[in-house]
């Protein structure tokens, strides 16, 4: 099997990885998450066994890094002020001139938020979303449709 030079992956996908990192971790942590994801991907790259979906592989690593940042941040918050936890937003809303959709995305239950962001910001299919979330494609479909319903986004429009 022949893996492309890592530089070609960086050139082809750095924008997508950054975009997903920002959507999952917010503007304050987006760049750090993306940087971490690239560093991890570089370290693991020679052990990759399939070139079929390297973009999906990179986005899955990005998702994992975003969740790590997220978890450690939650622990920190809990330690500093246990009372603030339930009210703390899951993720800071990306600064976007929209109709408040990102604020509503940020307020979604964690799994739904991850699924809908992976699906539409990452532009991944349900199989890849399911792989990233460690679940089944059927569950990914359900999480995404629940998320869209909660966001009151026209599901037909998203197809």
């Amino acid at each position, binding site marked *: 099997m*022949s893996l492309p030079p*890592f530089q070609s992956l960086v050139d082809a996908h750095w924008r997508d990885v950054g975009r997903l990192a920002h959507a999952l971790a917010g503007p304050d942590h987006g760049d750090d998450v993306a940087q971490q994801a690239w560093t991890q991907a570089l370290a693991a790259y020679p052990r990759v066994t399939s070139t079929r979906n390297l973009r999906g592989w990179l986005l899955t690593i990005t998702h994992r890094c975003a969740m790590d940042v997220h978890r450690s941040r939650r622990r920190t918050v809990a330690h500093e002020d246990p009372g603030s936890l339930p009210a703390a937003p899951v993720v800071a809303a990306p600064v976007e001139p929209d109709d408040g959709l990102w604020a509503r995305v940020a307020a979604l239950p964690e799994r739904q938020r991850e699924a809908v962001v992976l699906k539409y910001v990452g532009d991944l299919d349900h199989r890849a979303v399911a792989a990233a979330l460690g679940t089944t494609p059927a569950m990914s479909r359900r999480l995404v449709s629940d998320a869209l319903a909660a966001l009151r986004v026209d599901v037909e429009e998203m197809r």
Partner: protein
Amino acid sequence: MSSVFAEFAPEVRRPVLPETDISYAVSDTSVGRLLLAVRSDGRLVTSAYVASADEESAWLQRLADVVSPRVLHHERPLDGARRELDDYLAGRLERFSVPVDLVLASAFQRSVLSALAAQVGYGSSTTYGALASAIARPKASRAVGTALGANPLCVFVPCHRVLPAGGSVEGGVRNVGGYAGGPAAKEFLLTLEARSAP
């Protein structure tokens, strides 16, 4: 998809990655566009003429396949090789001291290139036939030519010093034989060395 998801365009930063198994850079020189690549230990593995983006990609893919897929563009690790190359092309340097690695060469190519590097010094030249004899394969001059044509370390391993026997002159132009960088580049290097040699 006409949704805000598609329009989500945060300002993202390009990742900054460490120097790794292979670092490469491309240099525009007086003999042409050269792709230079070093391993993490600093040994030069590639100095190849890349006239087009396709040729550049093909060499990078070869490095990924043969050495490691961790191939990244980094200028700094190539500084030493680049400085020597500049000095050489300006006639200020006769012998390169950058360590080289012939990992991209076949066993036969290695014997040809090693004999060449050891026996044919700055400002001198040999022939395909003489080099074939030097490696005890007197009938292999054609194979020697092929091996030199695929030299992964152009200029640093001086395949430009190997000429066809007889050195015919056609229309006032000397026949210097084939060269990866083209006959003009070969002629340039030979003239440079002839002029600068002691």
